[in-house]
Every structure is written in C-alpha cells, then in structure tokens.
C-alpha cells in the first residue's frame, strides 16, 4: 500500500502546482497571453492596434533573425552598462566616504537631497545642451540616474553599522583602515548590493528613454520608430523583448546576490525580528 499523500487525485495535484509552486505565476502570464491572442483573433479589441500575440512573436523572430534587433540591443546594452559601471565606480566610494565621515556628510547631505529627487527627465535637456545628442549624453544620463540610489543606499549602509561591532574592533586594536576594511565595508555590503540592484533596473529604463528622445539607434529608438512607421507588431516585439531583458538582468543580479551574500540571507531569514 502506498502512503496517503495530500495530492493523490488529479485536482489536488493541479491546485498544488497552481498555488504552492512557482509555476503558478508562469501560468498567469500564459493565461493572459492566451486571452490576448483570442481577443485579437475574435476582434474583441482592435487587431491593428493590438495585434495577435502570434503576429508579435513572428515579428520578433523576423527582426531578430534579420539582425535589426540585435544591432540595436548591442548599442543599448553598451550605453546601459557604461553608464551603470560609471555610477557604481563613483557611487560606492563616494557613499562610503560620506557615510564614514560626519563632516563630509553634513557638507553634502543637502546637495544630495536636492539632486536625488530631481526627475531625470528634467535633467535631460540640460545634458543635451551641454553634451549633444550622442552617446556621451545617453551614458551621462544613465550614470546620473543610477548614481543616486547607489549613493543613498551605501550611506545608509555605513550609518547602519552596529556600534557594538565597531567597539569590538576597536578593543581588539583595529586601526581606522582596518575598521573600515574589515567591519564597515563588510557590514554595509548588503546595502551596497541593494543599491546596485535598484540602479540596474533604473539604468535600463533611462537608457530607453534617452534613446527615444534623441538619436537614431538603440532599442528605445527602435520601439518609437516602429510606432511612427506603423510597424505595430514590431513595436510590440521591441517592448516584449525589453520585458524579457529586464527580467533576465534582475534575475542574474538576484542569483549573484544570494551567492555572494549568503551570510546575510541566512542571518535575516533566521531572525525575522
């Protein structure tokens, strides 16, 4: 006799997969796409403005194979990663310094609080004026937008370092450099990674916006251009591909984070205080 399991009948199994595993979420997406497909097919909504999913997939396949989409993506991802890397390279050390040194913090805090909430879209005209409409402008805008979340998170991280930890290190005779390297940098690292994750999503958004505003290449340009030239399925194809790219970028980051920050995950999941 087999032991009794809660999922013996078929209904039980289905409800288990739907509500207890991660597959349920994928099914939601599939269900929505199916509804979309039939909605267009049966003219529930305008099939020209909202084409069938299969047509969008076909268009996505065509622009990918023809090399049009990959070419745009190469440029977009270059701009995005260049801007993002600049913001990390500048943002992390700046945040550490501002967080560590009270005087520097007091001097820069109002400036940060003014720049941070300024909508990046409002900054773009100034940058176009100063840097033109080429790569420099786009990379600068991306770096600018992703700089602030990194900076603020790193500062918070340094400020959040437990006093007992610092005092412990000092009792053991740690020099300021050792204190910084072995305690502050480590204890703040979860915040640093959080800032970097928030920023990478922002950098993709801002790259696309910058490409839509000026220039003649990149995925942002592609989507807008498809709309203007009435290549509607291609336009949707561009947006779909962005959804997938955005998802992948975030996913990769989360995987990296959980492998590097294993201690933090264990610590926080153990003590939900």
């Amino acid at each position, binding site marked *: 006799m087999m032991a009794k399991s809660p999922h013996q009948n078929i209904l039980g199994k289905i409800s288990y997969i739907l509500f207890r595993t991660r597959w349920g979420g994928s099914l939601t997406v599939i269900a929505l796409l199916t509804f979309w497909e039939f909605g267009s097919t049966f003219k529930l909504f305008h099939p020209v403005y909202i084409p069938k999913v299969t047509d969008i997939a076909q268009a996505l396949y065509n622009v990918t194979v023809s090399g049009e989409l990959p070419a745009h993506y190469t440029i977009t991802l270059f701009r995005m990663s260049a801007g993002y890397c600049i913001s990390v390279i500048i943002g992390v050390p700046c945040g550490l310094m501002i967080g560590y040194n009270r005087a520097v913090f007091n001097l820069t805090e109002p400036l940060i609080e003014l720049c941070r909430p300024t909508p990046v879209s409002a900054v773009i005209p100034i940058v176009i004026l100063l840097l033109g409409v080429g790569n420099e402008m786009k990379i600068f805008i991306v770096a600018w937008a992703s700089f602030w979340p990194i900076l603020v998170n790193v500062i918070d991280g340094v400020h959040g370092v*437990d006093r*007992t*930890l610092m*005092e*412990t*290190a*000092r*009792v*053991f*005779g*740690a*020099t300021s450099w*050792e204190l910084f390297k*072995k*305690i502050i940098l*480590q*204890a703040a*690292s979860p915040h640093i990674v959080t800032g970097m994750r928030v920023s990478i999503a922002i950098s993709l958004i801002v790259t696309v916006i910058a490409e839509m505003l000026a220039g003649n290449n990149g995925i942002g340009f592609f989507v807008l251009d498809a709309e203007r030239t009435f290549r509607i399925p291609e336009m949707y194809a561009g947006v779909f591909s962005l959804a997938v790219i955005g998802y992948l970028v975030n996913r990769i980051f989360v995987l990296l984070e959980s492998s590097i920050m294993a*201690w*933090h995950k*264990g*610590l926080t999941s*153990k*003590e939900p205080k």
Partner: protein
Amino acid sequence: MNLLSVKNISKEFISPNQHTFAIEKIGFEVKEREFISVIGPSGCGKTTLLMMISGLMPPTSGEIILKGSKVDTPPPGLILLFQDYSRSLLPWRKVIKNVCFGLELKRQRRWLIGQDYKKQAEKYLEAVGLLKFKNHYPWQLSGGMQQRVAIARALACEPTLMLMDEPFGSLDAQTRAELEDFLLRIWERFHQTIIFVTHDIEEGVYLSDRVIVLAKSPSRIVKEFQNDLPRPRNQIETRSDPRFLEIRNEIHRIITQKEKDWGKENDGKEPPSKYLG
C-alpha cells in the same frame, strides 16, 4: 605591582538639556591574576566604567593606569567582552574566521610573527569546545555557544586583562551556570586577570576573589569584599556554603538600603538612567 589602577575617575554626561553625573570618584586596584566582580543595580554605570577602562570612552576626571601606562585608547593586552554577543560577532564570518579576527589585526601580528594564526584560533576554539562548529556562521549557533565563540576570540589574543560586561546576562539559567564553571576553568588554565561586571549578586560572589559593590546615580563604590570562598568552586557546594550566603545577604542588604536612601534624598523619584547602564 598592580596590573591596573583606577584612580578616582568620574564621568559626567553633558547634553543641552541634561547634565548627568554617571560615575563619581571611583578608585580601585587590581592585582595580576585576580578575579574581580563588580556588582551593582542596573543603570549604575557599570558599562560606562568598563568602557573607560578599555579606553573607548575618556573619563571626565581621574586616570586609569594599566601596566604602568595611562589608558587613553584601547590598550594592547586588554579585551572587553560585550553582553550582546550576537552583535559583537561578525555575522559574515564563519566561527573560525571570527576567532581569527583579533589575530589578523596589525597589533597582534607583531607578536604572532611566524606563527600560523589559524592554529592559534583552533587551539582556543578547542578550549571552548566548539572546534567542530568552526565552519558554522555564528547565527547558526545557540546563545551560549555564541558567547563561547566570543570568549574564544578574546582568549586567542592572549589578553592579560579581560573585562566582561554582564556576559551571561541574556542566557537561560542552566546555560549560565555551565558558562560560569567554564569561565572558572578557563581562568585557572590561562591565568588572565578578569573584571566581571554583573547585576546578579550570586553570580558575582560565586566567581570572584574580590567583590566591588556599586551604588547608583552617581555610581560610587560602597563596599569591597575579600571573597575567601575555597576554590575550586562548585555550583552546589559553594552556593550552599554559609560564608557564601553571608556575603550574598550582606551585599543584598547594602544595595537595597542604598536604593531606599536614594529614594528619600530625591523624593522618591526614579534615578536618571538615560545615559547609564
């Protein structure tokens, strides 16, 4: 010669709307290899006292002399063990690396030249009985085990003076009794000098050679006991020794009396405890 002399130190905390006398003219001497307990009610500035002795906080007046030199920064050979072990262990390091922490620092590297500090760390992890947990993270261990890791980390630096700030305060009674005996064995084996701060009178008497009793607000020494209970101590025999009970009751009487006096002098107001503890 005395290892440590605390000479008439006082500590005031001054902030715009409050002026608190935390400690008033405390002075005592500590001989090498002595085990001293400092007992006082909570909020009587015991932690402040240890912070000053360890050089983390300067006294407002008076001075502290350790091995002939004045303490103004954390001196070598002194380790302070915090009550809050979970916050003083580095959560990103495994147990063995936590014990290594002190040894990696420049100061200790000077005397560990040519020695493998991993070996040193393992030796003391062995001494606290946690060698088989060396690859765990501290937060995977129980409270008592975490405090033992913190003790091993302190011992690995081979301090001459260990300050302990209510190290067993947040542990359950049984673990606490175990760790008390464990500490006594460690002390007999490695011969450090220990200043053990606690609000638990029995714990203080059970462990020490000498008991210093503090009263609060401002904190000052009200009495010193030479504690001549026989060693080795035993949780059952020592604690039922008539002499043990005598000392314990006497300290209890002093502390409760002082609390009452304080109430009378200050119209029954609660003592200010904002900056103390």
